[in-house]
């Protein structure tokens, strides 16, 4: 899952600091944050991808990251479970904590970290295994199941919570890759939640799906938000508006503005946010 996402770092525009605000507009803090990021900077070689990003992610909240391509939203998302570690030239600095634990501390093992901070990618990427084994994979490597019966229970619960159980319960041994795109994405969500994460990161989870499958995923995000914190990177402004309680707008590597989604979409404070969400030249 992690290896499949390896690749060259994305092209980043040079940062024109003059156009950007020095500090983020809006309240970056929440009460009882589950995750805190402070002054996060990411460099790909000598290029700065994001700079000075500070943001809290609350418990059981859905927050959207929006912004033009290359703005750093995916880069920041990938910092939150150290996915950027897989890119050799990438250097992350700043402070990111999950329930108070520094996730970049030298003694942190990224495998259990990525169980605590699950991830769902743009393109559904089930393993070339059965539906059951796809969901059982995480609990197995993390040793969460006591026996076969317990494992079955974990898999069923994860599939139920992902809204897929009724569609696949009688064909759990079929290959996961044989499902439709929307079902595959829900299978990937079931796989992520099977290890009981604290946060789920979603990187454009619906961009490869049709409107019906998208609606199902959005409904699922809403359902899951009662238990998990969900961070979603999306290019669809309407999706951000529909699913998230808060929205963060990134531009040229800075977190320009963050706030309640309804306020941000009705009355953005910064001109760049306004220009982006109204489809004007920035």
């Amino acid at each position, binding site marked *: 899952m992690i290896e499949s996402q390896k690749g060259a770092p994305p092209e980043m525009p040079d940062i024109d600091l003059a156009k950007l605000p020095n500090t983020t507009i809006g309240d970056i803090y929440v009460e009882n944050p589950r995750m805190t990021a402070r002054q996060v900077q990411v460099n790909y070689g000598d290029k700065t991808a994001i700079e000075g990003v500070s943001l809290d992610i609350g418990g059981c909240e859905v927050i959207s990251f929006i912004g033009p391509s290359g703005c750093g939203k995916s880069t920041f998302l990938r910092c939150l479970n150290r996915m950027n570690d897989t890119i050799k030239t990438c250097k992350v600095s700043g402070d990111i904590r999950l329930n108070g634990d520094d996730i970049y501390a030298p003694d942190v093992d990224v495998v259990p970290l990525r169980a605590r901070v699950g991830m769902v990618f743009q393109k559904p990427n089930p393993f070339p295994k059965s539906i059951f084994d796809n969901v059982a994979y995480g609990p197995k490597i993390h040793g969460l199941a006591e026996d076969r019966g317990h494992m079955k229970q974990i898999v069923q619960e994860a599939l139920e919570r992902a809204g897929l159980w009724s569609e696949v319960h009688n064909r759990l041994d079929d290959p996961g890759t044989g499902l439709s795109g929307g079902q595959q994405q829900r299978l990937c969500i079931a796989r992520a939640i099977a290890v009981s994460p604290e946060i789920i990161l979603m990187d454009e989870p619906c961009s490869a799906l049709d409107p019906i499958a998208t609606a199902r995923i959005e409904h699922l995000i809403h359902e899951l938000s009662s238990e998990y914190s969900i961070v979603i990177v999306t290019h669809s402004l309407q999706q951000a508006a529909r699913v998230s309680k808060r929205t963060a707008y990134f531009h040229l590597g800075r977190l320009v503005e963050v706030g309640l989604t309804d306020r941000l*979409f009705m*009355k953005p404070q910064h001109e760049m946010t*306004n220009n982006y969400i109204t489809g*004007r030249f920035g």
Partner: protein
Amino acid sequence: MSDLHIVSQFQSELDAIKAKIIKMGGLVEASIVGASASLYNRDAELAEHVRASDAAIDTLEQQINDEAARVIALRSPNAEDLRLLLTVIKVSGNLERIADYSKNIAKRTRVLLELRSIDGSPAALRRMAREVELMLGDALNAYVQQDQALALSVIARDEAVDQIYNTLFREFLTFMMEDPRNITACMHLHFIAKNIERMGDHVTSIAEQVVFYTSGEKPTDERTKADVTSSDAALSGMKPTWSTGAE
């Protein structure tokens, strides 16, 4: 805010809706002027023209609302674009109501031509209508220029219109008490005064929409309502004045 949309068609659609609001505003201004002039000059032909011109205003309101709904459905606008479209729907409704009041004034003018004239009141009504027409012009300019300060000044000016109405209310009561033969004409004139006062309220509402469009906030201050004629306390306070007038 001055940047143009990447999708130029979207920009054209918004511009077209704005242009229709301005066109509608122009027709409504003309209908206020026409209704007021027909009353003052006792001009039946002009009154008829005002009545007939209402249909074009109604059609424009329908077109604006249809177009705004279409753009909301197809473009999913946000922020200032969404605020523009929400406000055009309300503003076109306000304009349509103002035109209805003009039409009503024109209808009553036809009736008043058959009745004895009441000294002084047509001039006061013309002043009142003139003030509302100027306020409307400023509210529409504020809309086009996204001028919040101008919109707020329009809101403040509604008080003067209300005060003219209060004065007329007392005058009409006095005339009716003086001579019951004035009652029919005064009732019509009172309705006309009330119509103009309501026009002022609709213009104020347009100005409030401009504030929302430009700032994203509705005006917070409770605006002053100077029309005291519907207040029990004010009515009881007026009684001695009427008595004096009737004696």
